[in-house]
Structure formats: C-alpha cells, structure tokens
C-alpha cells in the first residue's frame, strides 16, 4: 500500500457518493460496540487487579468495586525475585529471539533474491516445503527433546520460533521490490563480497522490513506459552506467560515458592490475595502490549500487506 493511496482513502470519499447520514450513524454505532467488546476485557481485568479482597468476596468481580487497593501489586512486589526472574526470561527470550530471527530471516531472504545463485532453486524448496507439510506434534516433540537435546534449555524457547517461511517470503519480496537490484550488481562489479553486500547494503536498506519482522517476532516471543508448556519443566526458565499458566493450574505455585522465605505454605496461601493477584499478573503482560501496539500497528499492517502482495 503506497502512501499516496492511503491519503486518497482518508480524504477522497466524494461527498456525493456517500452512504446516508442514517446508515453512517448505524455503522458508527456498530463499530463502537465492536471496539468496546475488544477493549472492555482489558479494562475489566485492570479493575479487578485493583479491587480489594473484601470487595471481591462480597460482590464478585465487578466493574465498580467497593474499594480499590494495591495489595495485589504489593504482593507481586513482595515476590519480586520470582516475578523479576520470569520477566528476565521473557525479556531475554524476546530480545535474543528477535535478533537471531532477524538475521536468519533476512539473510535467507537476500540469498533468495539473487537470481544467479546456483542453489537458489533448492533453497526455494527448502523454504516452501515446510509451508505445506510439517512433521506433526509427536515427532517434533521427540526430535526436539531427544535428538536436539533441547528440553529445559533456554534455546528451546528461542530457536523453534526464530524462522517462519512466511517471514522469509516477506523479506524476499521486500528486498526484491524495494531495493534496486542494480546496486547489488554494481557492488559486485566493484568487488564487494556477498557477505559485505549483505551486511553493508541489504541490512541498512531494509530497515522498514526489519522493523516489521522484528515486531512480528517480538510480539510472538512475548506472547508465547506453548514452548514453555511443552518443553520447560524447570521453574527457573518460566517466562511470565508460563508463570501465569502455572498459577492457573496450580494455585499453590506461589505458596510453594514461599517455603524458601520461611513461612509455611498453608499460611501463605491463606493470606494471598489470590483473585486480584492473578489478574495483576495478567495486567503485567497485557499492559506493555496494549500500550505499544497502536504505535507499531502500521508496521504490522505493512508486514501483513507485503505478505499478501501477489506478484
């Protein structure tokens, strides 16, 4: 989608050829409702996370709690060692994964644009086949755990999500259509090696592409819980999503953790603001995304639409 077209769409709805005021009002109302349905759950859990235990006990989860407190967050703060560790895992995985993924994706994307490359046909198949055929969950699980030995290692959270054929094709399309191929030719004539062309020309020239794929990757890593569920047993490698998931299944998780702090787990579980604390954890994950995505939305949109360009 070019800039020009986008502005056309914004300004140039001819005044004569428009839907009537009444229809417009109905449509606007429908979209208002739909937007509300999408936003209300987030607001709702934020309110719950600030509700006091007494209010939750008396009124249940309510949009209008009797009293607001910070006790859930205080509780999380008291457990900051665990929360920070999980946050650390999430952040490490997101950052490392995004960097590794960007390198693997863009290098393959560049190589696939070089029409003179002898192995291009083979590599195109290498990228294409996984799009239609996969080994399935059982053998993937066995290969990751026994052949690659990735169980309970931080790499299992990073590597499986680093490359996707979809991203490689976005990268290839972008490099071929936005960067004039003749500058690669001229660099080759000047004697630049392919590695040098990649690092000094392709990377700096494809910043919008890297931004798009980087965002897709980092949101994917931040939101991932599947790999933790399948391959991670060690509590030290729990990401925020995994902690949230394990609280889910095992409400005593935090209480167990408390053993190390010298309080009995039963005592601890009793004093825990369970309900609001769960929601506070969820808020910790949701709020960063909800604050960030409106600013980066256009990169997503461009990524999704580059991908859907059919040449």
């Amino acid at each position, binding site marked *: 989608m070019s800039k020009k077209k986008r502005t056309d769409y914004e300004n140039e709805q*001819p005044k004569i050829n428009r839907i009537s005021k009444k229809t417009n009002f109905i449509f606007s109302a429908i979209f208002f409702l739909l937007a509300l349905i999408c936003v209300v759950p987030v607001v709702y859990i934020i309110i719950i996370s600030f509700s006091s235990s007494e209010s939750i006990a008396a009124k249940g989860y309510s949009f209008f709690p009797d009293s607001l407190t910070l006790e859930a967050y205080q509780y999380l703060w008291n457990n900051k060692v665990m929360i920070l560790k999980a946050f650390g895992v999430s952040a490490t995985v997101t950052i490392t994964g995004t960097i590794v993924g960007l390198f693997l994706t863009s290098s393959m994307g560049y190589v696939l644009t070089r029409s003179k490359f002898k192995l291009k046909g083979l590599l195109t198949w290498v990228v294409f086949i996984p799009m239609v055929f996969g*080994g399935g969950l059982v053998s993937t699980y066995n290969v990751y755990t026994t052949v690659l030995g990735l169980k309970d290692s931080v790499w299992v959270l990073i590597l499986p999500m680093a490359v996707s054929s979809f991203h490689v094709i976005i990268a290839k399309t972008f490099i071929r259509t936005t960067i004039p191929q003749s500058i690669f030719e001229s660099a080759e004539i000047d004697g630049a090696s392919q590695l040098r062309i990649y690092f000094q020309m392709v990377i700096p020239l494809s910043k919008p592409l890297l931004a798009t794929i980087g965002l897709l990757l980092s949101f994917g890593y931040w939101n991932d*819980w599947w790999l933790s569920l*399948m391959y991670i047993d060690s509590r030290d490698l729990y990401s925020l999503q995994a902690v949230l998931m394990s609280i889910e299944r095992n409400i005593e998780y935090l209480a167990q953790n408390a053993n190390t702090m010298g309080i009995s787990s039963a005592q601890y579980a009793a004093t825990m603001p369970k309900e609001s604390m769960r929601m506070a954890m969820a808020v910790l994950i949701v709020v960063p995304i*909800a604050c960030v995505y409106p600013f980066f939305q256009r990169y997503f949109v461009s990524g999704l639409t580059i991908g859907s360009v059919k040449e």
Partner: protein
Amino acid sequence: MPCYNNSKAINRYSTVLDNTDLLKQKEVLMSKKSKGVKKKRWTRDDTQLALLALPTTIWYVCFCFLPMFGVLMAFKNYRIVEAGRSFFYNLLHSETTGFKNFEFLFSSGSGTRVLKLTLTYNIAFIILGIVVPVILSLMMSQLHGKRYGKTCQTLMFLPYFMSWVIVGYFVYAFLSPDKGLFNTILTMLNKDTVNWYREPEYWPYFLVFLNVWKGMGYGMVVYLASITGIDTSLYEAAMMDGATKFQQAVKITLPLMKSVIIMMFILSIGGLVRSDFGLFYQVPKASNSLYTVTETIDVFIYKMIKEQPNPNMGSAASFLQSVVSCALILITNRIVKWMDKDSAII
C-alpha cells in the same frame, strides 16, 4: 499471500535487467575474467551466498525437516529399544506395525469423534472468519469519519495481540462460577447461576465467538488494504449510472476483492484438520467436563504426549493431520487454479 511460484516474476525481472547497460558491462567484465570457462561454473559469489544461507538452512533441517522423518512413527510400535540412543535409532529399530496404529485410533472411537469435532469447528471458523471481516471492512470503508474508523480499527486489533492464556483470564473474569460477571448478573435477575466450566452446551458458542473476536482485526487489515487499492473512478462511474451504495459494494468491491478472499480461503482450508490448542485447552481451563466439546485434534495429540502417554496413537493422529492438511492445500489450490488461474497461490 506469498507467491510461491516466483520463477515467472524473476524471469520477467531479469529480462528488464538484461536491457540495462550495467548488466552488459558486467557480462563483458565476467567474460574477460573467465575466458573459455563454462558459464555454469560454481563461482566465489555462489560460495559466499551459500555461506550466508547456511545458518538458516541448518535451522530448517533441524526444526522442520528432521521432524518430517519422524512421521514414520505412525507406522511403528515405538519404544525405547536401547536407552541413551536417539529418537531416530529407536524409531528405525522399533517393530513395524503397518496401519495398526490407525486401526486402534479409529476402533477406539476417539479418532472419529475428535476428527468430527475438529472439522465442525473449523468449518464454522472458516465461514465466519471470512464473512465477518469482509462485511466489517466493507462497512468501515464507507464510514464518513475516517479518523473514527481508524480508531475503531486499532481497538479491534487489540485481541489479536493477546495470547490465549491471557484470553483465558478474560473469559474467567466473566465466567468464574462464584465471582464472574455473568453469574453476578444472573443472580441479580433472580435466575439460577450456571457452573460455566462444567456445562458443555454453551461452549461451542463461546469458542466460535472468541475465535472470530480474536481474528477480526487481522482480517479487516487484509481486506481493507485490498479495498483501499480499488480505483475510485469505478464508483463514480457506477454512481453516474444510478447504482446504490449497496449495489456498488456487491457489484464492484466484492468482485475486486475476490482474489484476496480466495487466497485467505485457501490458507484457511489447509487448517481444516488443525485446531488452535490455546483456544481449546487454555481458554476452557482444560476442564474435564468440557472435553466432549473441546477435545479437538491438537488437544488430543497433546494429551497423548503429556497427560496419558500413548505416542503411537498420538503419532497416527499427527500423521493424519500433516498429510491431510498438505493434501488439502494442494487440492484446493489446484481447483482454484482450474476455475480461475489468477487466484491460485502456488
């Protein structure tokens, strides 16, 4: 979406390049360098490009192609033949049982039940997942206030960025049996409360709603982009001829969106025998009472790996899933190609 058959485009591109002086110049230089050598020889550039592609290729081999050989497991009675050996050693030395695993899967009745459930959900998801965003994007493109439309679109994109674990919490806040909003409202209306996580009859609606809710923003982005690309003079001409807005949408916009819609359709057809594990496992909190309506194929396979290990039955289901979705993509694409050459994606 992605175009797999790029050779055409590249050929077209290289014919453009052939006309440039630069390339001619380069070819002159090349021929000077490599006199009397065949053109197809492996060059230094090839080595360097291969080196650049090596890490990603290794990644593909490890994470995509190795598991592909594991599908053999569906025809084996897999067991650890020798402790400490790798998966493939054990796999090759396990007893070959032919189609026993499949027979077992279907004779136990679970195979048929799981497949039926998966297909039913997916048909609903595919139809609604196309119809709803297409209608919404048609409506949105007509809004008078463009800024208002953009804001709504941004807000409607929000669920797309939430993981299913988080969505599970949202749902819990509404459906929790003692504290959830739904039961609070039911109590206020003096009706009996419902133990939502134990009543399977409501869940198909919840799951379909959630799936549409989460995918709405993404679909709208794709379809709005294609509507935006339509030449506005077409609408002006139609208006001159007296077409109403509705006629314009049906006769102009929809036909021009056809290839995008078909592309999204082909892509979703491939997922007909897949199911979103998060939606069916995390959102209903893995509740045992709901398994009749949530045990779709991925939940089933997950249980065969983690909860009640039975890798043979799991691998048979897994194999069916891989092969059927591959076949579905290729067949649908072939049919589409046969009906309308330009809309096919491969």
